[in-house]
């Protein structure tokens, strides 16, 4: 019998398939944990007991009738509150969309359900996914299971905390400037931002149509591979989704890292890294070298400009998406998010167009100068210790803005480029907060990133540690 509080997503799926327990039993267990922990963590905006249990019973009936639903049959998961579902509210963490019901179910959510997943509820997030800390003035901040005084990261704050707290076996998030990888790093779990276009965005709240990515968070590389395999692939309703074939992401997980070249950037990404984080990353690189990987030095071209180039695009597109509400309901935004979505007002249209033109040029340079020299680029996911909620809140003092810039330093550059990036747990700082190692690949190299993460997880047990709030 599995320990439901420790089992991974793939282990839970296997136990369900073997009939060791029913989906209803597993779902009840997760719901009980959600109700017990949510008052302290605030990772759920809505826990949907009735709908989850009804879906679990249907899954059990299907299995009893010999009708397997898919690779997530009966497995409890949860989704950031930005995936539309006509049957449920989708608030996008905002006051403006409180009570909103989308016209059709988001493709990624429909695919998860189609594979048999049970949705436990809607997860907390930063208002309109615009912010890296997980503060939310309308629904309250999400708290970090490793220390509730610290941020869970954002914007997919609940998606990170719910997995770390062992409430959900996997979650769905979005990433426009690090919003999957930061919560993954801050909560000691894995998060994958796939290549732009790998996962269709149909029915997901938009922030920036050129830079938005959807992806999974979970506790192991195998879990991520399972979830990505379900949600990836072309959707005719999203012309920006790729028609490229979806590989079997689970097939290559055991291949190891022998012969792989790990690129360590000599510029930008290690600037200002705290000593404890640097030591953890050095130990991770040494472990991978011991397993047969080879370290190579690389320089990422224009690294210091990539985040701002991305912001040029994001701010402009966000201002367009929010234009009507900025004119008619400005009081319904928090002041911080209102200022962020309105920043596009100050960006000339020519600068926006140039930023889009530059993207392909820079991608070609990065592929030639980085990914021709290495198979995977390795950086910190988060260069600093996970900060406190107080230090990153409004009025958090003079250091607040520099702390927020440091949160984004290593993750945001890869949104502009659209290349895949993954954060995997790589230890803990002396304060007991998680450290994340970021793996970045050339376009559509998700399988390689998952292979490296899986190899690293076989060498370490960081992902098996339980947070004190568990």
């Amino acid at each position, binding site marked *: 019998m599995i320990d439901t509080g420790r089992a991974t997503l793939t282990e839970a799926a296997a136990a369900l398939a073997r009939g060791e327990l029913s989906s209803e039993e597993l779902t009840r267990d997760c719901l009980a944990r959600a109700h017990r922990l949510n008052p302290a963590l605030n990772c759920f905006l809505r826990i949907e007991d009735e709908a989850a249990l009804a879906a679990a019973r249907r899954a059990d009936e299907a299995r009893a009738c010999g009708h397997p639903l898919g690779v997530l049959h009966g497995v409890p998961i949860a989704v950031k509150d930005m995936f539309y579902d006509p049957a449920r509210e989708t608030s996008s963490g905002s006051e403006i969309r409180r009570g909103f019901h989308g016209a059709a179910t988001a493709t990624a959510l429909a695919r998860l359900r189609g594979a048999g997943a049970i949705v436990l509820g809607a997860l907390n997030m930063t208002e309109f996914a615009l912010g890296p800390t997980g503060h939310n003035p309308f629904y309250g901040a999400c708290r970090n299971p490793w220390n509730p005084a610290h941020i869970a990261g954002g914007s997919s704050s609940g998606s990170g905390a719910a997995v770390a707290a062992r409430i959900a076996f996997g979650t769905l998030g979005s990433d426009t400037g690090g919003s999957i990888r930061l919560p993954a790093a801050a909560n000691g779990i894995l998060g994958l931002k796939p*290549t*732009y*276009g790998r996962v269709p965005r149909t029915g997901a709240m938009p922030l920036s149509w*050129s830079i938005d990515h959807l992806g999974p968070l979970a506790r192991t590389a195998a879990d991520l591979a399972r979830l990505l395999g379900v949600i990836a692939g072309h959707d005719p309703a999203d012309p*920006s989704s*790729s028609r*490229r*074939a*979806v*590989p*079997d992401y689970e097939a290559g997980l055991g291949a190891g890292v022998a012969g792989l070249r790990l690129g360590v950037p000599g510029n930008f990404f290690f600037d200002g890294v705290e000593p404890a984080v640097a030591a953890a990353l050095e130990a991770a690189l040494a472990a991978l070298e011991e397993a047969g990987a080879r370290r190579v030095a690389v320089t990422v071209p*224009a690294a210091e*400009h990539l*985040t*701002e*180039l991305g*912001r*040029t695009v994001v*701010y402009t597109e966000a201002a367009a998406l929010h*234009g009507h509400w*900025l*004119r008619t309901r*400005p009081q319904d935004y928090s*002041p911080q998010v*209102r*200022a*962020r979505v*309105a*920043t*596009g*007002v*100050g*960006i*000339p249209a020519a*600068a926006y*167009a*140039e*930023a*889009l*033109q*530059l*993207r*392909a*040029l*820079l*991608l*070609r340079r990065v*592929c030639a100068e980085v990914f021709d020299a290495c198979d995977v680029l390795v950086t910190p996911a988060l260069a600093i210790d996970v900060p406190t909620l107080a230090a990153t809140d409004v009025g958090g003092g003079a250091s607040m803005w520099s702390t927020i810039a440091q949160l984004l330093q290593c993750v945001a550059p890869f949104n502009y480029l*659209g*290349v895949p990036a993954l954060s995997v747990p790589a230890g803990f700082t002396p304060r007991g907060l998680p450290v994340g190692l970021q793996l970045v690949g*050339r*376009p*559509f*190299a998700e*399988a390689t990133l998952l292979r490296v993460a899986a190899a690293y997880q076989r060498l370490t047990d960081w992902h098996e540690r339980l947070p004190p709030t568990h």
Partner: protein
Amino acid sequence: MQDRDAVALDAATVAALARLLGYPPLDAETAARIAAGAGNAVAAVRATATVPLFDAEPGNYLAELERLAGPEP
């Protein structure tokens, strides 16, 4: 960052652009914050656009990602 101080975007200009778009008046702090954020963003474009972009077609970035990927599975 970059040379934004050399050509700064000022809060009054931001406030005027916001009015042009029909936004309610911005308070001085918000306008200043927007000016700083937008200024940083535009400065990055200026610093990076060092070659002619006359033939750069931005319309199909997905195709560029697919072209630069490894072989299909």
